[in-house]
């Protein structure tokens, strides 16, 4: 709520004060593109012909009054009974948590690897080392990152997970679809304040990107 100058929401009911909307991201992205020089920017949920997100952008103009651009983006309102499908997964009991290398570097490495293989293995340990590996019939390529640092996580009983006696050198790894990783990295336009990933061996990789007011989390399941 603090992110916006003004924020009003009224959900279905007091104890379910949330609204789930489904939309085509391309539409919202296009609307936002036109708002780059906006004076003000407002999003409203309306129901004209059908449920819509009405994005109203006030743009500077040559005259005293502003130019107003309105985009009506059709959305689907998701009924409450399906809300469970979209529940945020809880932070898993991970084996290793590690800070990511510079996203730009990671992106160019992954982009080149994408041409060689459909899958990539991410492995990391609690000594700040991470490897990105691909393996095909013809070639194996590994990129090594060192001195990345491991974020301190406080677990429920107050002690850090690293204190749970895990061997610092031991790698936790997961094999994921490389396209999904590449899309995640390609989508980052702004450098986050903090970027880390948690690996549950052979199960899932959980990426957390923190900006000032915003957090982005990605869960990418591991493949066999």
């Amino acid at each position, binding site marked *: 709520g603090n992110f916006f100058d003004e924020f009003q929401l009224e959900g279905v009911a007091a104890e379910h004060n949330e609204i789930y909307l489904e939309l*085509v991201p391309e*539409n919202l992205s*296009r*609307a936002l593109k*036109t708002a780059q020089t906006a004076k003000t920017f407002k999003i409203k949920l309306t129901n*004209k*012909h*059908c449920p*819509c997100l009405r994005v109203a952008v006030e743009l500077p*103009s*040559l*005259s*005293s*009054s502003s*130019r*107003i*651009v*309105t*985009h*009506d*983006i*059709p959305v*689907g309102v998701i009924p409450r009974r399906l809300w469970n499908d979209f529940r945020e997964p809880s932070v898993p009991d991970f084996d290793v948590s590690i800070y990511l290398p510079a996203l730009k570097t990671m992106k160019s490495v992954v982009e080149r690897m994408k041409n060689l293989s459909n899958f990539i293995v991410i492995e990391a340990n609690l000594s700040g080392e991470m490897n990105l590996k691909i393996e095909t019939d013809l070639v194996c390529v590994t990129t090594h990152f060192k001195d990345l640092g491991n974020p301190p996580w406080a677990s429920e009983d107050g002690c850090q997970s690293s204190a749970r006696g895990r061997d610092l050198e031991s790698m936790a790894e997961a094999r994921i679809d490389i396209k999904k990783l590449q899309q995640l990295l390609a989508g980052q336009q702004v450098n986050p304040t903090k970027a880390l990933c948690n690996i549950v061996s052979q199960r899932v990789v959980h990426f957390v990107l923190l900006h000032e007011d915003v957090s982005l989390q990605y869960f990418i399941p591991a493949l066999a």
Partner: protein
Amino acid sequence: IYLKCILCCFLSLPVFGRAIHAIARISDEFWFDPIEKGLALRSVNSSRSAYACVFFSSMFFQHYCWTAVSQPCQKGKQLSLPCKLIIKSVLPVFRCANVLERNVEKCSIYRNINGRHITFQLLCKHGVVKTYNLTFQECDPLQAVFAKHLCPNVLKVHSRLLADIMIHFPASQEEVTLSVTPMKVCFKSYTEEDTDFSKTMLTEIQLNPKEFDYFQVGVDSEVTFCLKELRGLIAFSEATSVPISIHFDISGKPIAFSIEDMVLEASFILATLSEAEKETASQQPSCFSEQQESAEAIASKKPPWYENAPNMKPNMSPLAKQELRNIARVPSPVVTDREGPAMAKDHAVLEGEATESHQKVRMQVVFTFHSLFFGAVSCKEKDAVSHPCHSLATASDTEEDFGNMQRSPV
């Protein structure tokens, strides 16, 4: 009868290149029409709902030379010999308009006597010479008549503003609606009754009339036209830095986007969707009864909007049918003594057709109000003589601008 036409060099190559690109958005082929006063490039799309004309006066070129050798019986009439070129063959010549200015020192365009080619020759840096010989088709002149000065709504705006507006619409947006009242101006995505709103993103841009260099709204109106065809003109206008004038009326009547400065003029005339066929012309003037019906064949070509807009009447209004029958009425040559682009043909010229019956003149005047015209002169004597010049010369006694007219189905 021979026509020799030489055009050499350019003051501004990128401007010419952008003009070609702008015309390319209308159609795959265009008319290359040199006359004494300059060079006109024209194009019309297959459904006859968009027409473009760019006229470069001789002063635009570093050197312009056009000569016609005429027969004595011409009585001093000057001839134009337009030809049709395929856009795709010309575009590579002007592919990168910006690069052109840097690498090309000179561009010559010429057509040899009796030649079957129009030659574009680029003299580039380092002694490289690129020669393009493009085969052309001889064809009937093309000309549209649109009485701009009779439009009640006139807006004048810098191309930057139009470009800034159109950027909010997706590149795939076909039709856009312009809605004006004396107090406000609005561009919005076109919607119709059976638009699926749950799948379509709609965009609307509201502007203050003060943003326009000139703003005159005589009648509140909402006109819908094809955006794709316009984008080329906007890019062209940005290259010339000349503001764009918009002339329009109520829905159904064409909208004209034009730019004009000392050395060039361009007009893009687009048909607009009509709300309903309100024409009441149920009676057809008897003077048209003898018209040829060949126009019916052309009438069957419907604009794309016909297919996509099931709400619109599939049949043409009776008025439209009348206009079609007027085609091929008088196969007269296009008057070549033009002061400017053919578009600027005035009301006055229409009324000057004293030789015609009064009623016919009146109907022709009405026609210019109602739709987009262009006269494709068809020479009755085509079969008689091989040379088009010759047949043009003998076609008619009257100086009529538009022999054949067809209403653009809107």
